[in-house]
C-alpha cells in the first residue's frame, strides 16, 4: 500500500485504499473455506486477537485478517499470514469453534498457490 507515482507536478498520487469488492479476488476465500469449513462461522468477535501472542508484539490482527480473506484483499493478507506464529492459543477462546490456526495455515497455503497460479 505504498505511494505509486510521482510526477513533474511535484506530488505523488497514492493508490486507492478502497476495497472494491467487484474487482477483488475471492479465490483465497474459497480455498480457505474448503480447507477449513469452520471459517464460515467467524462472527468477528475479536477474541482471537485479544489472546494472540503475535498480536502483542506486531500489528497482527487475526480478526481483521479473516475480514481480508472474506473481502479478497490479498495484498494486506500476504503480510498478515507471515506474522502468525501458529501457537494456537486462539483456538481455545473462539466462541464459534472456528479452527483459527488452520485458517491461517490455509490462507498461507492459498497465497503460495495463488502465486504459482494453482488456485
Amino acid at each position, binding site marked *: 500500500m505504498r505511494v505509486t507515482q510521482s510526477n513533474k507536478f511535484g506530488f505523488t498520487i497514492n493508490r486507492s485504499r*478502497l476495497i472494491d469488492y467487484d474487482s477483488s479476488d475471492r479465490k483465497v476465500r474459497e480455498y480457505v473455506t474448503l480447507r477449513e469449513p469452520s471459517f464460515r*462461522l467467524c462472527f468477528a468477535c475479536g477474541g482471537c486477537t485479544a489472546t494472540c501472542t503475535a498480536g502483542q508484539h506486531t500489528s497482527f490482527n487475526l480478526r481483521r485478517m479473516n475480514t481480508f480473506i472474506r*473481502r479478497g484483499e490479498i495484498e494486506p493478507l500476504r503480510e498478515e499470514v507471515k506474522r502468525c506464529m501458529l501457537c494456537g492459543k486462539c483456538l481455545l477462546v473462539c466462541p464459534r469453534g472456528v479452527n483459527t490456526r488452520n485458517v491461517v495455515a490455509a490462507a498461507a497455503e492459498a497465497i503460495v498457490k495463488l502465486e504459482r497460479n494453482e488456485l
Partner: protein
Amino acid sequence: MKTMSAHIVVAGGGVAGMEAAGTLAGMGYRVTMIEKDDAPGGHLLQWHALFPDRRPADEVISHFRKHTEHPNLRIITGTTVEKVRNHGSGVLVSLSGGAEEQADAVIVATGFELFDAHRKEEYGYGIYDNVITSADLEAMFNRGLVAKADGSVPSRIGLVHCVGSRDEKVNNNHCSKVCCVTAVKQAIEIRKMLPSCEVFCFYMDMRMYGPYYEELYRESQEYHNVNFIRGKVSEASVNINNRLVIKVEDTLAGRPLKMELDIIVLMVGMEMAGAGMRLAEASGMKRGINRFLESTDHHYGNNLSGLRGVFYAGTCTAPMNITDTISHARAAVTETVKYLNSR
C-alpha cells in the same frame, strides 16, 4: 358474575388487538374490536414467513382468525378510534365517522407503522428501480419470485439494517429490535430461492435477542453462506449497467468498501402508527421521546395508560416481535380484568 357482561373496546385489529379481543371474548366479555383496514390481521397479512423458524405467516393468521371468531366479539372494520375519555364509570369511545361506543374498558392496540423508506434519501427508495424495502421483499416471496424491476434474476443482493432505526437524522433514536433477525431470515430465504445469488447483510450490531435468533444467525453463516459486513451503508447510486453501487465502511477492516448490487433491501424499522398518535393526542395519553405510548411504569406498569379503564397492548408502546406482542396483549387482558373486578 356481573362484570362478565362488561363491554370492552379494543382499538386495533393487529396481533395485539386480536389476541386481547379473542381472549376477552373467550372469557365471556362483550368485546368490540375496531380495525382501520378492511379486515383484521395487521402487518401480519403482508408477511410471507416468520422468524426464526420461517413458518408460513398464514398459519398464525388462521390461528388468529379462529381465536377471534366468537359470538361475544364484534368486529368493526374500516374505522379508527379517534378519542377515548372517561364518562360516568366507563369510557366513551369516539370513532371515525362520528359514532360512539360506551365501554367499560378500552385496550389500545394501534400498533406500529413501517418506517417510510423515502425519508432516507441517500438510499434512493422511490428513485432507483431496484431499491426495495423488507416489506416489498416479503411481497416478492409471496409471489414466489425475487427479481429485478426488469424481470432479470439478481446475482447479488444487499440487505441494509437499521433503515429508519437508531438514526437521529430521521428522529428515531430507538432500535426496532426485529429487523436484524428479519434480515437474517430473508437472507436465508433468498439463498434458498436463488442459490447462485450472493447475499450481504450490512449491520451495525447483530441484535439477535430472541430465542433461536442467534442460532438462526449461525445457521445463515454455516449452511447458507450469507455474508455480513459491519458498517452502516453511506449511500446508494445506480451505474450505467443498471446495477446499484453502495458505499460503506467495512469497519472490521477499517477501510471504505464499494460494491455493486442488483437489489438493495432496506430493513425498515417500526414507528408509532399515525392513527395511534392522533388518538393519543386527542385523549391526553403520554408519549415518550420515541413517540410510542408511554405507560405509567416501564417495568411493572407497562400496560397502564394512566387513564382510568384504558390499557395498552403491543407495539403501540414499543417495537416488539409477535411472541412478545402476544404476551403483552395477554398482560393487558390481565390488567383489564383486574381493573373490572376491582370496580
